[in-house]
């Protein structure tokens, strides 16, 4: 019945959306099946940072389905932004962008602005501040106008601008670290929220084996200089155990204890990423 309701929902959305396009026919209100993908097709499937890795906002949107979570409970103390270690800065940038999404979900304009300042400070250290400055201004404007939907889009655009600027600066290796940082912080937050009101539907959100595997592969492909960075080594090692925690079959529901273990692992990494440089 729930499945039927979901499909009816999509059908209504499809019909109304497509009929809004004057020159488009309405969508067929049916479900279709195709031939299975071959082994070669699976092997050659493209994976790319901009589509394969979900944004923290997408992760957070899923957890909201069961009711409005207590987002402010997931705030953390300000992180150190004094590091000169570029790998740490990139990881930190990812966690801070995730913090921005939390503030948006909490509808907390001041916190959005606070996080925005830290994002800008770290972007400067990676020489990508120009791309963030213009976004930063609109983030402040949207925060003051309580334009939460636009803020959500602006945060994703900021993250992409940072990654694009890193690419232009030939710092593509750091893009991976921004994504990893964002995912780790997002996982800490979502597991924290699941634990506050444990239920099977929310716990099942944590199944993400391919995503962690993708991030690990990207870390493995980093230049040896970055791989030797002690923090990156910690992240790589801990992602091995985290991968096991999020690799369960589609019909398994993680227990409260399993969610707690994942929360502790993600929180430990977030803390290490945000720790002052030695």
């Amino acid at each position, binding site marked *: 019945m729930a499945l039927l309701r979901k499909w009816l929902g999509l059908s209504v959305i499809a019909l109304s959306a497509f009929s809004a396009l004057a020159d488009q026919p309405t969508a067929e209100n049916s479900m279709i099946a*195709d031939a299975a993908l071959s082994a070669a097709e699976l092997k050659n499937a493209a994976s790319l940072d901009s589509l394969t890795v979900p944004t923290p906002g997408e992760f957070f949107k899923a957890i909201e389905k069961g009711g409005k979570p207590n987002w402010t409970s997931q705030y953390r103390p300000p992180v150190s932004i004094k590091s000169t270690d570029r790998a740490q800065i990139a990881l930190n940038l990812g966690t801070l962008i995730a913090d921005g999404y939390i503030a948006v979900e909490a509808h907390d304009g001041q916190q959005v602005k606070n996080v925005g300042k830290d994002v800008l400070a770290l972007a400067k250290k990676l020489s990508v501040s120009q791309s963030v400055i213009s976004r930063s201004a609109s983030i402040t404007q949207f925060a003051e106008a309580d334009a939460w939907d636009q803020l959500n889009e602006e945060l994703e655009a900021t993250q992409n601008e940072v990654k694009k600027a890193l690419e232009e600066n030939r710092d593509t290796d750091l893009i991976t670290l921004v994504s990893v940082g964002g995912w780790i912080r997002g996982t800490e937050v979502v597991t924290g929220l699941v634990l506050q009101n444990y239920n099977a539907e929310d716990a099942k959100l944590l199944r993400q084996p391919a995503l962690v595997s993708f991030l690990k592969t990207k870390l493995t492909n980093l230049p040896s200089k970055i791989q030797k960075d002690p923090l990156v080594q910690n992240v790589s090692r801990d992602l091995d155990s985290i991968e096991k925690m999020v690799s369960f079959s589609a019909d398994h529901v993680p227990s409260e204890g399993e969610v707690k273990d994942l929360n502790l692992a993600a929180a430990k990494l977030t803390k290490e990423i945000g720790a002052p440089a030695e």
Partner: protein
Amino acid sequence: MIRFVLATLAASLVLAPMGLTETDDQVTARSDAIDLAGAFQNDGFKIRDGNFLGQISKDHSQIVAVNLYSGNAYWFTASTGQKANKLKVSIFDDSGKPVSYMPYQSGPRAAAGFSPDASGLYYIKVRLEEGQPATFCLIYSYK
């Protein structure tokens, strides 16, 4: 002036292999895909800022891996922007088995709507059913 021309040429030679310059076909395909996806925004769908631009022909489909969350609803939207093309978007689970989805197809534009029951890996296949090889753009929106 000559120095400027040389500098511009040098910059384009450096930037082109890095994929930082876009062809007209890419711009057209992306613009058309975003135009189609925009129809969902009124229903609360957010368009992801990222996209996948690639080449497609009747003999060469493109498949992209995505990680989706149960509870969310998704629309995957693709277009070549070329009127003579007929495109199709379909969805598969992590083992490559087809899943049921809501199809939409109109010439060079196609979309697939999906609400996963299980979080995890899925594959999006974009296939050219009719027309000459073309550049396509795939984007997705969620709510």
